[in-house]
């Protein structure tokens, strides 16, 4: 690409990542401890006769892989946007303390049996995690809001502080909890993708899609903000409005993702950097490519987590850290040299 980005060159670039994403989504559900019979899948699709292989494929692996890809793809997009508005390359979706709030909500829902219910497509754990995440989001917004926009460093510091307070609250709740609940809490905190059927996905999308939509509507403006707030204003960008959109779009998308999967760390931090190293710094490429790369990466990591010590599954966060970290370093070193 010699000149400035065109719609055609942008689409060509992003489609490379999209193909990788689609391949992972197609291949990963076929892999696991139970061998999937292709004949069974086709019969289920055409004739409606379901064998065990089709049940596992359509109601366990497909929703799980789709969930993993969408959740982590979203976290990578939010990470890319937050790194710009927080002027911090180490920012990630969890920097604003949203996960901390979600954790407190989830742990409360697990701790008190009276709070365990199902409402519409939401489980109580998911609903309370959402409430906790939104409470933190509103608290940070009220702390960092200024007449002329956002106080970025207050945003950052308030996020870090609320994360610490939330961690303290979670520790207290764990201390007070009966040991019976501790395992359930730990599994949530490690980040899990245990879904059966499409109910959880249905609960995820009403918040995820608007959140992502808002972020994607800011792609051009994020480029200008990356050059500095004042130069962006000079170029004609309504900077306070962009901050507000990225804050709420990113916040809502993160809350939706975390409420369902628990915290899956690391990917939201490194995927945007990897994409920038591979494809440059234009956020019209970085944001969609981060979604596809994050999604593809997690679909692959989840498959490894399901198969490595089959039939035992290990938390996917362990795989993302162990495999993703060296991969990221390799990209970093390759480009530096």
């Amino acid at each position, binding site marked *: 690409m010699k000149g*400035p980005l065109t719609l055609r060159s942008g689409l060509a670039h992003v489609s490379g990542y999209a193909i990788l994403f689609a391949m992972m989504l197609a291949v990963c559900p076929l892999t696991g401890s139970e061998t999937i019979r292709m004949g069974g899948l086709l019969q289920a699709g055409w004739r409606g006769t379901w064998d065990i292989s089709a049940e596992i494929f359509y109601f366990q692996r497909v929703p799980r892989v789709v969930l993993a890809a969408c959740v982590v793809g979203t976290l990578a997009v939010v990470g890319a946007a937050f790194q710009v508005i927080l*002027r911090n390359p180490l920012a990630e979706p969890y920097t604003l303390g949203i996960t901390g709030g979600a954790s407190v909500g989830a742990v409360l829902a697990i701790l008190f049996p009276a709070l365990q219910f199902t409402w519409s497509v939401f489980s109580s754990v998911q609903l309370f995690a959402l409430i906790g995440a939104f409470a933190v989001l509103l608290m940070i917004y009220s702390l960092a809001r200024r007449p002329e926009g956002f106080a970025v460093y207050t945003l950052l510091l308030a996020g870090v502080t609320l994360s610490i307070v939330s961690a303290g609250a979670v520790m207290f709740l764990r201390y007070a909890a009966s040991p019976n609940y501790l395992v359930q809490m730990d599994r949530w905190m490690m980040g899990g993708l245990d879904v059966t059927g499409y109910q959880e996905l249905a609960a995820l999308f009403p918040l995820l899609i608007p959140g992502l939509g808002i972020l994607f509507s800011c792609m051009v403006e994020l480029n*200008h903000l*990356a*050059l*500095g707030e004042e130069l962006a204003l000079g*170029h004609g*960008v*309504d900077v306070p409005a962009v901050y507000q959109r990225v804050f709420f779009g990113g916040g809502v998308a993160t809350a939706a993702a975390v409420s369902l999967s628990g915290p899956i760390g690391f990917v939201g931090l490194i995927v945007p950097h990897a994409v920038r190293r591979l494809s440059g*710094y234009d956020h019209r490429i970085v944001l969609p490519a981060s979604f596809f790369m994050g999604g593809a990466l997690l679909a692959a990591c989840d498959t490894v987590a399901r198969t490595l010590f089959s039939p035992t599954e290990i938390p996917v966060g362990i795989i993302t850290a162990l495999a993703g970290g060296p991969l990221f370093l390799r990209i970093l070193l390759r480009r530096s040299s």
Partner: protein
Amino acid sequence: MEPNPDLLTITDLRYAYPDSSWQLDAPSFRGRAGEIVSVIGPNGSGKSTLLRLAAGILPFSQGRIEILGKDIRFQDRRRIAKVLGYLPQESPAEFDFRVIDVVAMGRYAHLPAGGFLRDHDREVVEECMRQTATLPLKQRRMSRLSGGERKRVLLASVLAQEPRVLLLDEPTSALDLHHQVRFFAILTQLADAGLSIVVVTHDMNLASLYCHRMVLMSEGQIVREGAPEEVLTLEQLAPIYGGNFLIGRHPQIPRPLIYPDMKGTGG
């Protein structure tokens, strides 16, 4: 002869930062087409604040700022950006864009959603790079540029807005003499093309040589405004900067220059 039209007009402007007793007063300030005006003054005198206010970056409640006769408070940022270019003192470098991408970003206010350049935009971008001598750098990453090259690229990005008024905050600070002179030579060409240029600078000699008018500020007030020979006098400068300097003349053009007084007899 009729004076050039005023493109930037500031009237009765008063501004105070929240929780601060410091206040800026600018009863009258004009930027005319075809002129370079330098704003000089010691640190904290309000030069950059004046520029930020004029660029519409700092919101104000008292006074009036007009660009091409229109009050900037009633215009959205895109509309302002089509007539006014602002180059801040610093811009972060964490995101390593290519030179061509940075210059192209200057077209933002003229582009539809998506920010993709059309043929005319590409021509403007190329012309701005030619004007600022940055065309050979266009594929380079910003991190690979020298300070002077980087400043010229950012100027090209601002010029791509096709502004009529250009506000520059210390554009030549931290540049070597060669790059300083080169930068001001570009500004002279732009002024000759009809732009109104306001430059905040600490370099009074360069300002004297290249600017048509100078504005001297101290403690938030405009102390003196006029031609370089009217502003760069011991009488004007000594109360503000102290008296340890001498004023001479450039050997080729009748412009004042300032020298440090090595024997301590100045003032």
